[in-house]
């Protein structure tokens, strides 16, 4: 670690950063200062340019204009390696690990310690272990294969990797996107440790709570331009949202639409179980939103997968509108009237090289080929009601921002007119505006009598949207809470901390 900087020292100064892709300008003269020992949040809607700015700092992209000063000296990182050598390291938005390699190999990837020109695996392991111990992560072993770690574990390896560069500046692009609250805590502690050491942290997140919990200052981007940089303590979340979206958002979670009422039970699971799950009992009524809460790996996604035929329930029964449903494949589930918005948008939700139109009608093509063309006529309407922002329906979805991609996924499922829909982390990694759109959509669907099962790791969302909350722990239902429950109760159930007060 290079010298202890006083908290006020400005480590990094970015001035007038410009960047365009394919002639489209995505950054318009952005300024950013980072001070030693501060956590500096960077927020903005999807596509605002946060990741791009961060990648310029990391040397992944080169700015078209503007300057970057590190310690008062002008620098230009032509390659990520140069940035790392200068003490700037980055936790990127997408995972950057090799699943087939060990933790140590990943942490030291690209700069494995050597002795006599040969890689010194012993030292690599020792150094990794030391690093892990230092951060109090004794449960993580250097020789573990990364593919055997949970998402949280992998995220932690990413952070450890960034730290291992002896970084003075660490930027983190949505490090918590894949984490449940419980693991976010762990990240908080890591960040606090880094701050103590005088590391400057650039922190991107869509979760406002984290911004207020963690950051000292916050920079807001909108459409690639700097809106403002303020001390976090000087701003309220409403103001922040207004600056970000350009308009005030009255209530984050829209109210139920008039006329929405819980009808008959549409989706019903009785005693569902398999290798991951046991004794799952769950009812979702038409017009009702039921949230599935729980920690990372508690089995929420597994329920969705088992319902949808990706996995199976080996025990118990499932009924949809009273008819038994034993989906052995997604196709059967879709036929029965079920839809699943998966948690991994890019990996499971979209065919990225295809057009918006092709993605939106994919389910129709796959499951109802005969009526596909007819069904596809509804799609433009659905897309526009979702306020999709694009250059036309033939644009490939890989060029869309996260929020817009999510809208395409939603459109694809809405086109099938499902009876019940499972939304797995529907707002993961999307901005406030898009989130609001998703919430509104959920309200609209439930007004139409669709049964909605929402899986979410964001407690505010669970509390704000759900009519009932089912909490899962270790593959079993830990308890059920009515709307209006508080965060503590949910967490208590999820962690199994104080089981007394809750009913099974």
């Amino acid at each position: 670690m290079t010298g202890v900087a006083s908290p006020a020292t400005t480590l990094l100064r970015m001035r007038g950063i410009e960047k365009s892709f394919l002639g489209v300008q995505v950054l318009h003269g952005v300024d950013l200062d980072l001070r030693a020992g501060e956590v500096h949040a960077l927020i903005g809607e999807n596509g605002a340019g946060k990741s791009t700015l961060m990648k310029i700092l990391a040397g992944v992209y080169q700015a078209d204009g503007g300057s970057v000063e590190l310690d008062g000296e002008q620098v230009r990182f032509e390659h990520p390696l140069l940035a790392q050598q200068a003490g700037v390291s980055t936790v990127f938005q997408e995972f950057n690990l090799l699943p087939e390699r060990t933790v140590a190999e990943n942490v030291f990837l690209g700069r494995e310690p050597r002795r006599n020109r040969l890689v010194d695996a012993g030292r690599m392991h020792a150094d990794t272990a030391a690093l892990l111990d230092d951060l109090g992560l004794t449960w993580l072993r250097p020789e573990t294969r990364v593919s055997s770690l949970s998402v949280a574990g992998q995220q932690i390896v990413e952070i450890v990797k960034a730290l291992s560069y002896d970084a003075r500046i660490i930027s983190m692009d949505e490090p918590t996107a894949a984490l449940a609250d419980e693991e976010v805590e762990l990240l908080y502690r890591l960040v606090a440790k880094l701050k103590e050491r005088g590391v400057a942290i650039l922190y991107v997140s869509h979760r406002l709570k984290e911004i207020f919990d963690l950051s000292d200052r916050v920079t807001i981007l909108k459409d690639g331009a700097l809106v403002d940089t303020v001390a976090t303590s000087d701003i309220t979340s409403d103001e922040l949202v207004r600056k970000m979206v350009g308009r005030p958002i009255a209530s984050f979670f829209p109210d139920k639409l008039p006329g929405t009422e819980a009808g008959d039970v549409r989706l019903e699971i009785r005693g569902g179980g398999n290798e991951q799950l046991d004794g799952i009992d769950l009812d979702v009524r038409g017009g009702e939103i039921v949230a599935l809460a729980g920690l990372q790996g508690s089995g929420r996604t597994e329920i969705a997968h088992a319902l949808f035929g990706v996995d199976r329930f080996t025990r118990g029964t499932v009924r949809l509108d009273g008819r038994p449903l034993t989906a052995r494949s997604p196709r059967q589930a879709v036929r029965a009237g079920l839809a699943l918005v998966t948690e991994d948008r890019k990996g499971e939700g979209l065919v990225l090289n295809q057009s918006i139109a092709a993605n939106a009608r994919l389910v129709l093509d796959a499951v109802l080929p005969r009526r596909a063309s007819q069904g596809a006529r509804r799609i433009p309407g659905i897309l526009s009601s979702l306020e999709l922002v694009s250059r036309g329906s033939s644009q490939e979805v890989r060029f869309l921002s996260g929020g817009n991609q999510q809208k395409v996924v939603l459109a694809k499922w809405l086109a099938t007119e499902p009876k019940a829909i499972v939304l797995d982390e529907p707002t993961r990694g999307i901005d406030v505006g898009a989130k609001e759109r998703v919430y509104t959509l959920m309200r609209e669907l439930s007004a139409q009598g669709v049964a909605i099962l929402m899986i979410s790791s964001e407690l505010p969302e669970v509390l704000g949207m759900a009519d009932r909350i089912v909490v899962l722990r270790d593959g079993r239902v830990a308890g059920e809470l009515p709307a209006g429950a508080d965060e503590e109760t949910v967490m208590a159930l999820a962690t199994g901390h104080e089981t007394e007060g809750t009913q099974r």
Partner: protein
Amino acid sequence: MTVTTQQPTPQRSAGSRAGDLLARVFGGGSATVFALLIVVFAAIFIVNPSFAEPPSLMAFLKQAAPLMILAIGQYFVIVSGEFDLSVGSLVGAQVVIAAALIDGEEGRTVPVILLMLGFGILVGLINGLITTLLKVQSFITTLGMMLVLYGAIRLWTGGAPTGALSEAFRQPGRGGIDMSVVRQLPWALMILVGIVIIAVAVMRSSYGRTLIATGDNERAAGFSGVRVWRVRTLAFVISSVLATLAAILIGGYAGVTAQVGQGLEFTAITAVVLGGAALGGGRGWVVAAMAGALTLEALFVLFNQLSMPSTIRPAVQGVIIIAAVAYAARERARPRHHQEVPSQPQPNEA
């Protein structure tokens, strides 16, 4: 960012359809192949104007039809993210089977052709099911199939083909309708046109869309209700059936020789890639794949017309293929993040 909010797409006018077609031909990954095709044909016509006469063109199309059909079959497999290395062996096997079973008797022609189609379907099913259900990479599955077919057929016939083809069998590949301007309108060309029309229709159908989606991201396709195994297996079956048709044309065109079909798989794959399809799936246009095959055949003709020493031809062919694919890769590469990473950073001494 200049973006527009999605409007409901208006009904597409004929004009916009034509525009779409033009955009497809001269944009995206297929531009290179059509440009190359035009250049090669122009060169041939310059060297030998008589090649532009209808009878010569017909003869050319007749001989190019089998490779184009193979390329179309290969396209289905490649766009679904797989490879079919067994088509060359399959063509050889089918011709040998035809000769051995028909053994010169006209009456057996139709039953044997039906049997060949059945055999083609079987081979495709095996390729497809091993790849999809047993999760063996198709490169290996079809490599294995190539060896098995090569060996099994020779084992059966004792090394060299036996028997003879019937006249009727030879008609599709050799014959045609005699007419004035073109001298002969080859059956092969008509079969090719039929296959192209069907192929384009299939790619526009739900099946075609799910096939490309599967090649692009099989997981996402699976979660959308696509029966990935079925879609892919069907692609292999299509490839094998088209290889069978190609075998009927090749056998008809030139009769049986021991070397029939050898190396055709590589030519077919090259043609498809030349046509802008991405190995790995999810991208490509069937018409361009066929154009790739036509380009290769035209290239061979050009070499011949130029009286280029035949030993040097492979080298020229290699250079042209690499150059064309590299050019297309450059064209297609839209700035993705890795593109901007310079490849020559400072040495990383630690």
